[in-house]
């Protein structure tokens, strides 16, 4: 989880990834940020996030993103 927070902070250092649970719902992350995130995750975790998983529920918090990685890894 710490590694993930670090990667997310590299993309947007102004966002409180530890506590926010409304990253998409409150329009904190733009679609541009989402693409930076999926592309970093693909490389760092050796996964490939399909379009069908790019839904608000999977990107609203760092925890949700972590759950998505775990799901795709498993």
């Amino acid at each position: 989880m710490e590694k993930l927070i670090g990667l997310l902070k590299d993309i947007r250092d102004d966002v409180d990834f530890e506590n926010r649970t409304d990253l998409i719902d409150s329009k904190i992350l733009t679609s541009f940020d989402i693409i930076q995130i999926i592309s970093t995750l693909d490389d760092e975790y050796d996964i490939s996030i399909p379009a069908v998983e790019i839904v608000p529920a999977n990107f609203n918090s760092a925890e949700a993103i972590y759950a998505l990685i775990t799901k795709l890894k498993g």
Partner: protein
Amino acid sequence: MNLLSFVFFAFLCILLLLYYKAGSGLQWKVLLFASLVFYMWARPVYVVFILISIVSTWKLMQNPVKSHFIWTIVINLGLLVIFKYSVNFGIHDLIAPLGISFYTFMTLGYAHDCYDKKITPSNDLLRYALFISYFPQLTQGPIGTYQEMQEQLTEYHKFDPENIKLGAYRVIIGVFKKLVIAGRVAFYIDTVYASPKSYGGLTIIVATCFYLIEMYADFSGYMDIVCGVSQMLGIRLKENFRRPYFSKSIPEYWRRWHISLNEWFNTHLFMPSVTTDWNRKLARLLGKVFPKAKKGTLRLIFPTIIVWIVTGVWHGAKVSYLGWGIYFAAVMLISFCTSSYVKKFSKKIHWNPDNVFVKIFQVVRTLFVLSIGEIIYRSESLENMKAAFRNILTDTRISGSSIAAAMTPFGNGNQAAASVIIIAVLAIAQFAVELAKEKDEKAFTGHRYLYAGAMLVVIALFGVAGKSNFMYQAF
């Protein structure tokens, strides 16, 4: 059926009567019947094509496997290509079925969502037929999604006088924008853009500014009319505009203009392209050439180019539309690739993004970049486009004679002065109307009678009755 005609007014009155008289099981069927009547009004035979699309997609998506999804794409895109594009190659001279560009996208969106298992396929052909053919959104959108629309369309709606009043008020706002504002400026734009080589740079700049006003007033006016009509039926359509000309960047502008089309492209073309294997591989190759570039940015390049070329061609098979698509693909890519540098630079020179002057600068910059794209889009030929840019770059002096020349497309003397005053007043009025619309959407308060009355008087006095076709109807 033209929305600005007496026939449509009579159609709506009869529909409202039957719709609210019908019981819960029958109400949505009345709506389906009315939608088919609306569709068949001008060219009854053309209903065949929308029915082919509805029945085949519904049937194939009962079992949304890959081969069925591909067949749905082939049938629907096939019809679109036959009607919309092959006419340019002289193969036939058939007129495209009403709203084909819009209902094809709704159909493909539905099929894609079924295939991706985001929705459960409809098990009722008639209910699905209403989703595709619901008449307010059929001709020019908004492009609704099955998730948003299905329940609303088929559930029972009790008569509510507030909905009728608010809906009618919204219709009046739309007619005001279309007939008074878009209608007033259209003549000037048509005159100048018919032959830009005959006009000085200042005149072309004025015509381009007017074109921005016309496009917004025409298209958002149409949306106000259809959203108002739909509200009278108790059904809320998706909003297609969020004051786009106040955007601070071009990517933001495209999130606030024709929202339903842009969301469609984002969901069904852009994001799937970003996540494909070939795009990942291409991004890796590009990464070797540009090792310092962000990986995410490299993955945006090809999907952005594809989406903008398709968006351009979606408007029609014209070089100007293709040029417009390529232009915006380039602008978006420049915006994506430079955003982190711009942020760093802004911090360095202590630009505060919340400062009002910084915001005004960003809005003006966006309008400037947008105007260049609209000159490409509006020019009817390559020659006209070159003439427009040449005259703007070489022949723009602000002098008494150039101002007098810029007045000529209005007509002569008093007519020109009157037009300038009317357009200035109307542009301010439109802004006021927009603000009032957003302020208090839920209740029909007393002052709305006053606004509605004032707008009706202005429509009667200054409305341009001959201009009742809407721009996006052509797509």
